């Protein structure tokens, strides 16, 4: 190795370890100011485990339980909404606060707007129907299927609810079996029970 190679190696070794956190914060602010954040996401703690939440400027796109790997959630958003997916917790502060209040039993109705982009067809109708079930009440799969316009599509309604991209906020946990059985739940039955318990149903 020549002297120059040695000098370059030494100089490269002395370079920064990357952008400082302060610089990254400034960059994030610029992204927001320039309107370039199509999908903002954050991770928030909850009594049901850490949740990934994501929103577009139109509204909430995703609430994901920790069993869904972050990479999977973000890749789907990049493919189906926009690749401009960025961690931007400030944008999600309002929904974060609402979720906190909900888990404390202090919030009965989310005012957060919903972006339905990740849903389609009958599944979207089913979820829109479920979104109207009042706090603390339950409906059967059959009732939701009927509300979505197809009384006999009970199984399809179950599938639609099972692929709810925004559990908790779109309350698919308020849909149960005829006769009182809990049915299924995206996040596991313990979580469905916990959510119903928060709303005063045991």
């Amino acid at each position, binding site marked *: 190795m020549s002297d*120059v190679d040695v000098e370059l190696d*030494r100089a490269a070794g*002395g370079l*920064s370890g990357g952008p400082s956190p302060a*610089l990254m914060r400034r960059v994030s602010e610029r992204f927001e100011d320039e309107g*370039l954040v199509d*999908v903002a996401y954050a991770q928030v703690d909850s009594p049901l485990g850490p949740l990934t939440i994501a929103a577009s400027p139109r509204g909430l796109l995703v609430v994901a339980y920790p069993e869904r790997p972050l990479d999977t959630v*973000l*890749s789907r958003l990049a493919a189906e909404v926009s690749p401009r997916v*960025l961690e931007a917790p400030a944008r999600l502060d309002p929904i974060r606060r609402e979720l906190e209040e909900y888990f404390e039993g202090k919030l009965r109705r989310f005012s957060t707007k919903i972006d339905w982009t990740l849903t389609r067809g009958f599944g979207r109708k089913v979820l829109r129907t479920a979104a109207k079930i009042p706090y603390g009440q339950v409906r059967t799969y059959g009732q939701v299927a009927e509300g979505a316009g197809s009384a006999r599509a009970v199984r399809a309604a179950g599938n639609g609810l099972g692929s709810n991209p925004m559990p908790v906020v779109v309350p698919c946990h308020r849909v149960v079996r005829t006769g009182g059985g809990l049915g299924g739940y995206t996040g596991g039955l313990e979580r469905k029970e916990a959510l119903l318990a928060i709303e005063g149903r045991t």
Partner: protein
Amino acid sequence: MSLPPFQLLLDSHGTTVHRFLVAAVGPADADDCFQEACIAALRAYPSLSHADNLRAWLMKIAQRKAIDAHRARARLPVPLAELPEVPSSDNGAVTSVDGLTTVWAHVRKLPEKQRMAVFLRSAADLPYADVARALDCSKDAARRNVHEGLKRLREEMAA
């Protein structure tokens, strides 16, 4: 084809981009260049037609910002505060105020193509194939530019 979430790009390659800029434009301007490069990349990102070698794509943008900064600075008088960064010590090595050798200051005086090729190869540690992509030239041309740059550097530092 689907592009990965932009945040993953930043997390994976932000350090390389920043290191390259610190070497190429100096610590004082690196942060601004980094910011401009990130904005330009995010703006252009959704219209990218392929998802391969996104690091080289990012470096191409960073490289352009470094050239802009360099040209802008060439039009300005040299600020006094920057003089202590470039004095030569007895053996010809360039020493900064804190005693660290800044061979970068010498590299910054090379012709544009050679300069960028050396920074991409040495500071960003890119393979020649990626240097070529970032500079929009052939792999041979990238290799030649690094080689010529180092040769010139050797001559200047020996002088």
